[in-house]
């Protein structure tokens, strides 16, 4: 068993003493209680736990999508506490990828446009070929001009994978990436995600409630009642 903060190499992500409390109907509820962790360059870390244990809240704080009540996150060597929301967005651009449970493709854009958008927001224009190539690699070569509502769930999640990896991110956050998929599509998505991660050398923080999926990561951490422990 290792500590959540254990890491052998240079860390791309570290969190110190994060805590988060929300106001519930019966008084304050602690969602995260003094959580610390560190993710090394190229490392894949799974965070497992039952529904409502605070996994997604932690992911949001680690990715700078939200701010903790206490503690700080260092993402790619930069303290998030020192940045405002736009600063955090800029830090993520092109370096951090996301895969969501609900895919979250932009409905008004084709598969290719969804992927190209990530490149353009990172200031990399004219790389449409790279986007098309990656989509082709994920078996969507014939779906480039399709809109999200013309794609199946599995295909949508593969477009989301392409969008997450097209910038060759240093770090990828994945939130229950198979939660809305059947077993076959889920397995396919996970295989592609891990192979792309390996190909691009991206670190991975994966939130899941599936222990089998967690085992594919280098390290698994368990979230229980707001506390993070190593498995």
């Amino acid at each position: 068993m290792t500590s959540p903060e254990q890491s052998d190499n240079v860390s791309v992500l570290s969190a110190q003493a994060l805590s988060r409390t929300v106001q519930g109907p019966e008084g304050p509820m602690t969602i995260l209680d003094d959580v610390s962790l560190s993710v090394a360059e190229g490392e894949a870390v799974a965070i497992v736990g039952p529904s409502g244990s605070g996994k997604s809240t932690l992911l949001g704080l680690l990715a700078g999508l939200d701010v903790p009540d206490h503690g700080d996150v260092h993402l790619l060597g930069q303290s998030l506490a020192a940045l405002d929301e736009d600063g955090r967005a800029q830090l993520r651009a092109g370096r951090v990828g996301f895969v969501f449970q609900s895919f979250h493709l932009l409905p008004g854009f084709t598969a290719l446009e969804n992927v190209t958008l990530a490149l353009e927001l990172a200031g990399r224009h004219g790389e449409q070929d790279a986007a098309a190539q990656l989509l082709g690699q994920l078996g969507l070569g014939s779906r480039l001009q399709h809109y999200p509502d013309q794609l199946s769930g599995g295909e949508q999640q593969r477009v989301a994978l392409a969008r997450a990896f097209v910038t060759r991110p240093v770090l990828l956050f994945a939130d229950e990436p198979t939660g809305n998929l059947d077993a076959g599509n889920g397995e396919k998505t996970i295989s592609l995600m891990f192979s792309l991660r390996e190909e691009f050398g991206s670190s991975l923080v994966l939130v899941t409630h599936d222990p089998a999926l967690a085992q594919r990561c280098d390290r698994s951490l368990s979230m229980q009642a707001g506390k993070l422990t190593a498995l």
Partner: protein
Amino acid sequence: MNTTSLVRRSLKRDLRDSTLRILMAALIIAIAAVASVGFFTDRVSRALKMQAHELMAADLLLRSSSPVPDAVSAQAASLGLQMAETVNFPSVVLNGQDDSQLVSVKAVSEQYPLRGALSTQTADGATAEVSPAPVPGSVYVEPALMTFSGGAPLWVGELQLSVAREILSEPDRGQGFSELAPRVMMNLADLPQSGLITEGSRARYALLLAGEADALAAFRDWFEAQDLPQLSLRDVDNARPAMARVLRQISTYFGLAALVTVLLAGAAIAMSVGQFAQEQAIAGAVLRTLGARRRWVLRWLFQRLGLIALIALWPGVLLGLAVQALLTLVLGDLFALDLPPASFAPVAYAAAVTLLALAGFASLPVLRAGAVPVVAVLRQGGGRLDSRARNALLLALLTCVVLMFLQTGDWKLVLIMTLALFLVTAVFAIGGAAIYRLLGRLVPSRQTLLRLVLRRRTPLMLLQLSVFGLTLMAMLLIGVVRGDLMRAWEMTIPSDAPNRFLVNVRPDQQTGVQALLEQTLDFDGRLYPVTRARLVSVNGEPAAERYAGNADAEGFLRHDFNLSYSDSAPAHNTLIEGQWWSAPAAENLISVESGFAERLGLRSGDRLGFSIGSQLREGVVSNLREVSWESFQVNFYAITSRAMLEDLPAMYITGYRQGPQQPDITATLARQFPGVTVIDTGRIMQQAQQIMARGSLAVQSVFLFTLAAGIIVLLAAVRSSRAARIRELAVLRTMGASHRQVRASIWLEFTLMGATAGFLAAFFASLTAWLIARQLLEASYHPDPLVWVIGVTGGAVLVGISGYLANRGVLNRAPLAALRGDV
């Protein structure tokens, strides 16, 4: 990254998005409504400005009901101003066959017109764009009289004058009722021999002036220093006050109809942008996870809406142009102006109004969409916007008020309109809710679908019902009820009420006219002496000072009115205060009509001073009379004792009934009594009704926009509640409802809403008509069943079809997908 390329890429999809299509339709209707009214009023007002000199045929105009004093002409001449004179009055002319025709005579001096051009043509069709005034012994006539004269000379009073030319256009042609009759233009030099004008005749005299600005200013200064209350001075700024007033009224009424359309469109804009913001909230959050800044996301959202508005501007403007063409066709010739082509100013105004509406109704939802916490992407169903949004409602209300002020420029009117809109909407909503509740009690329990539909009494649904009800009510009032009211009013006119009026009867003709009327028409009335007078003082205080700021009273002070004298009270008047004087009274006594007394705050014992020509006369109010104006008898605001007016020149007037079976004495009167004018009120009423019918058609065409906006509100409301409806129908399907039943429930829901709105509209339209009939016209009004048929059927068909079409897509949804929340 620049948002522009992203906006461009979003556009293709946005144009196909049903929410944004509704937004675009709302914008198009709002722009079209504002632009059509704007184009029309802009063209007429520019024509008025551009043609102001021509409209007066002069730079400066002096008008009076008596000849302009020589001192005034002498002053104008000394300043080197050009001068022309005109005298206008109604009269009757005869053709070679002794047929008579009521005409509007204009006698002009040789210099006429000083500005603009008199355009005529000869019998052989030779046109002269600039014609001199008619020479003595000849007249020019309008086309209607060419047929009447057959090219032969016309008897104008005691003179027979040849018809020299046909008038094509006359620069200062008036538009009043007395000017409805066709024009006969004669030389001023012929007027004395015609015998048409004697002292006391009802004529309008004008002195036209033109010249250098300095000389005109010097003349104006001199004139203002004189005490000449019987003369009124007009310049290009108030060249046609009556027309300017009509234009102001048209732009206010049409402007308000357009405004109602904009407000309705605003509701549709608010709903569709709210839906758009909801749909874009998560997209914005996803973009921010990918590194986009919040401001960038907002720019992306606002630019898309701006682009949609820009695209909507052009079809809106084109539609507005088409409708203004219709308005011009229907109403344009009322103004008798050459309308200039449409300018761009109304486009800018319509664009500004629409942008304001868009900003006011749309900015807060979009700002809220941009402010969704980015962490919402991690939550199931995250990114829900607060639908209550009090701030958005407040901003929308503020926008409504600003828009209303922009359109009316009158805070009082804005306040009244806001309150009235709230009140009427509330009344319709309460009425609708009551009908639904009542039906809910009456429907048997096995009618599950109907009961379900009746329970959908959401505030939004009641608001939609009010919108349709209000619009239908306006359409019914203008389209159907107006005719009923007109008929009801006509019924109140007694069958023996006079339908012809005789004016300009000279004292020496009085006995002869009376005898002719009695012999041929069983006339039992009398002729009344009439002197034109203006009220100048009350109890020694100048009337202008006493009534300064009192618009109601000032109306009486600006114009001369008819004053008569009599030894006995008119038989059809009722004395309500004081006694009639015993004839012949030696003192100067006055009997005042009660409404006139009320408006001017007059009581028995008050001393009234009148200016009559160049004379001043004073008398004491001795009694008040109630006059039934609807009786169509000859009536007067003030009648004096004989002593007060007898020595002054007067003309006589009377009214008589010309039955269809009786010999038409118009020609006899004109031949035997030159100068006497017969006014056919039946024909004037017919013309007035034609004008009203055209006005109604124009107002209805503007209200069509309101109706269209109502349908768009319905579409927007259906779109915004689409997800909930899909889920509801899916639940019904899972419980065993057939596809046919589900479709029937949609039909039923909207048809019922339309029928209820139509029913309420018919009810309130009939109620309004009844109130108008009872309170204003004092007529009995029997509601036309057609109002109810049109209201209920029209509402049911219109709303039923719109509602069904808007929901068609919902019916094809698989219940499973809907229940998964996959909608």
